[in-house]
């Protein structure tokens, strides 16, 4: 029996108009900013929450990220990447800065039981079946253990490479190399290319 099959969605594609919404935001158009927010808030909040963990804090940081997007939208350069990437890069840096600032006086190694490696699929509390998630999970699976742990601890938990090295009892220089190797594998697995 024939079934309606959804058109294959391409996870690498930018939701249509995001670049243009960001450019209009830079021109002070609040309606464009509002649409931009609607399209990106789920990703921004999800990412920030993963890094800072505390839900209330994550909302504060998300709010700061969007204010920063509004204020500095004129710095977005479409030649250098996509709007979504630009916003998520801002969000990640801000979340990491926040978690390091908040935890500067606490011992994070003692606070989080990372033993066994808080892998991507383990820490994701809201398991979804979305294609993007599936792709990341699949591609994470192509990494070596050290590559995956290094990427996980740095990206999703905000550790510096030196902290990662200490947690994994590995050489810091090796950890840096593994981060790069891991990103190369992920990039190739996801088919990321820049035009």
């Amino acid at each position: 029996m024939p079934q309606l099959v959804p058109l294959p969605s391409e996870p690498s594609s930018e939701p249509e108009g995001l670049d243009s919404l960001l450019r209009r935001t830079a021109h002070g158009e609040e309606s464009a900013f509002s649409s931009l927010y609607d399209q990106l808030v789920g990703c921004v909040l999800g990412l920030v929450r993963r890094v800072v963990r505390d839900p209330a804090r994550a909302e504060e940081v998300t709010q700061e990220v969007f204010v920063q997007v509004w204020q500095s939208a004129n710095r977005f350069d479409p030649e250098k990447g996509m709007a979504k990437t630009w916003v998520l890069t801002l969000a990640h840096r801000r979340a990491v800065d926040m978690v390091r600032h908040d935890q500067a006086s606490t011992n994070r190694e003692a606070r989080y039981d990372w033993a066994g490696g808080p892998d991507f699929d383990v820490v994701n509390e809201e398991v979804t079946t979305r294609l993007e998630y599936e792709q990341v999970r699949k591609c994470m699976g192509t990494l070596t253990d050290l590559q995956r742990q290094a990427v996980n601890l740095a990206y999703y938990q905000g550790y510096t490479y030196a902290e990662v090295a200490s947690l994994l009892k590995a050489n810091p220089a090796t950890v840096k190399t593994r981060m790069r190797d891991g990103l190369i594998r992920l990039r190739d697995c996801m088919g990321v290319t820049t035009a």
Partner: protein
Amino acid sequence: MVGAYVLDALTDSERDDFETHLATCATCAVELAEFQETAARLGAAAETTAPAELKMKVLEAVARAPQDRPNVISMTSRSQFRRVLPAMVAAAAALALILSFTAYQSQHDQTQNLQAQQAEFGQVLSADDAQTQSYKLDGGGRLRLVSSENLGEAVIAMDQLPELPSNRAYQLWRIDAAGHAESAGLMRNQDLPQGAATSLLTDLQDTEKIAMTIEPESGSNAPTTDAIAIMRIV
């Protein structure tokens, strides 16, 4: 290094150093862009559902937040009058941003300060290439810097800086590309009512970064402690 940079796994000073390197590394650009896109996919995979009330908070915050460089300035204008007016609007907006830090002042003081400071700072704040950045200090307080590369000047607004022991002062530094530091001003507790002050930094043509350290109250010829803030202006 680029892997750790993209994952935000460098310390602040390593990040600064690497960004300096990136600025002159043409071959890094492609890999950087691809890695940033890759990392963004990792971020997007964490997507969740945001509470509806968050949008109201964001829109309210945005309504109070002036943009770095209001578009009106870059619009082509046909007459001198139309050129000047948007610049004044921009200056007023930027000044309001800076003065919003100094809420402790009475309305009257604020008006007087606004007039005095508008004359002094207006040129920087309304410059076509004015860039705004803010910096939160680990020990409390924050800095906001509006800089114009074309003018070689910047306005720095300091707010809620913690009070220092009486034999200590905050000192600002201009740092050039070679890392040489030159004093850009000294602020003792009495110069910082409620930990706040705004000042104009000039002669920044060769300056790459503005830094702040804590020094003996008479100031130092060169920084003697680690910087509590570093802001890149080029």
